């Protein structure tokens, strides 16, 4: 591996390539059984039992505003469990999920391209096998989710408060 490359877990969202740095990932599992959480915001796909641990699944399509696409099969639903300190959070994506080396230097060059600028909010642009992809920052994702989760729970709380008021 050259110093200019960085291993990532690569996946697809709405036709766009995304990558999560490998050092941010604890493991990749099949999200065969997902329990929905009532009143949870849309970014929360649900929770899953991972070897006795409850892991919250974050719907990456929702996070980056991609249209929801149903999984073809059950084992197409993939949970990318994050490394500590976010080991109780997993990113929910669909197959295929691959390990790929992302060119970090190319990311800077690619960031100057119009496509990269348009999709800058979807993550830092990078190049993988000559194609532009979005390098996902786990902290950014957590921040977005936290904001969505808080606003979602606040909205749900207000709605519940409105319903409880006589």
């Amino acid at each position, binding site marked *: 591996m050259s110093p200019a490359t960085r291993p990532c877990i690569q996946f697809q969202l709405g036709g766009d390539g995304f990558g999560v740095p490998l050092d941010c990932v*604890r*493991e990749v599992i*099949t999200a065969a059984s997902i329990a929905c959480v009532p009143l949870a915001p849309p970014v929360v796909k649900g929770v899953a039992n991972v070897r006795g641990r409850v892991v919250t699944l974050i719907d990456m399509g929702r996070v980056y505003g991609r249209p929801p696409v149903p999984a073809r099969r059950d*084992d197409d639903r*993939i949970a990318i469990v994050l490394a500590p300190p976010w080991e109780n959070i997993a990113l929910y994506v669909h197959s295929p*999920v691959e*390990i790929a080396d992302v060119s970090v230097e190319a990311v800077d060059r690619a960031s100057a391209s119009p496509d990269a600028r348009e999709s800058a909010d979807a993550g830092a642009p990078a190049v993988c096998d000559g194609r532009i992809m979005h390098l996902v920052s786990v902290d950014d994702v957590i921040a977005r989710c936290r904001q969505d989760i808080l606003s979602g729970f606040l909205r749900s709380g207000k709605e519940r408060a409105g319903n409880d008021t006589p």
Partner: protein
Amino acid sequence: MRRKLAIAFVAVAIAAGLTNYIIGTLFRDSAVSTAVGLLIADALIGVLAGLSLSRYLTQHIHDLAAATSHMSKGDLTRTVEIHTGDEIEDLATSFNVMVGSLSKVVHEVKASTQQIVAAAQQLSSNADGMKTSVEEVASTVHVIARGAETQSETIARTTSITRDVARSTEQIAEKARSAASLGNEAAERARQGTADAVAATETIAAIHTDVKRVSDAVAGFRQQALQINKTVDFISTIAQQTHLLALNATIEAARAGEHGRGFAVVAEEISKLAENARVFADQIADLAREIDTGSGGVIESMDDCHASAERGRIAVTGVSRHLDGITQTVLATLERVREISAATGSQEKGAESLVKAIEELSRIALSNAAGTEEASAATREQTASMNAMAGSAREIASTSETLRELVTIFRI
């Protein structure tokens, strides 16, 4: 008569004697008195005797003359009653007999005349009636003669029409024979068609069975393809799990740093194998899906074929039934055509006989026309004879009337 004359002479002699005695008594002169007495006595006696005799004779003749006068006036009721016992009585008796006979004859003539008059009148009336009847008969015969002529003309036209009908009947008979021949051919073809339809039904039933069997086989094949799909899904799942396992191994190797490099290589190889297995599994899955899709298409086609075969079987069964019905109908039609042929044959013969009969009828009609003409002439002659007979009857009646009027002068 002689005895009466003798008695008259005796009476005259006695009267003359008495006269002489009276005169002698008166004149006492014997000679003169005798002569005068004798003369006067004789004269007186002669006068008395003549008067007596004359009266005696003319009295009965006068009666006879009176009776004859009445008879001459037609009065035959008068008779003469004379009982002199002499020739005058005989004459009166003969006269009475003659009057009786004449009265009887006149009576009979009167009766006969009345009968003749009645008979003549009846004859005249009958003659008039007969004349009227004969005239009516003549008129009727004339009408019949005209009718016979019309009938003859009509029969001639009827003969022509009947000949046309006979020719048409012959043509119909020929057409019926031709139709019977065609009907036989149609019946044979219909029977052949029915047999072919039955064979087609059996063939379609066999196709139906074969298609069903093939369809079942393809359905089994599809089930096997589905089973392959399930197996491929299982392999894909295993490949996916292997892939994820290799992925996680790579992650762990990366986390191990330098010490995990060899492990990362193995994990990469495993990942490649898993990827290859997934790719092949996907290919097999694609093939299985294609087989499934193809099998589904084949099954649908087979179902369509099965349905088509079933429809074909039903249609051919219907065709067979219709052909059977057509055969029955054609046979029935053929039978009718045969009957029509036989009937037209009989009709043909009947038409020929009818033509002959009508020709005979035409001849009879012509003969009737001639006969009616002769009858018309005869009735005209008969009318003339009736006229003559009526004239004669009227003459007889007139003559009888005259005779009756003549006879009416007799009273009986």
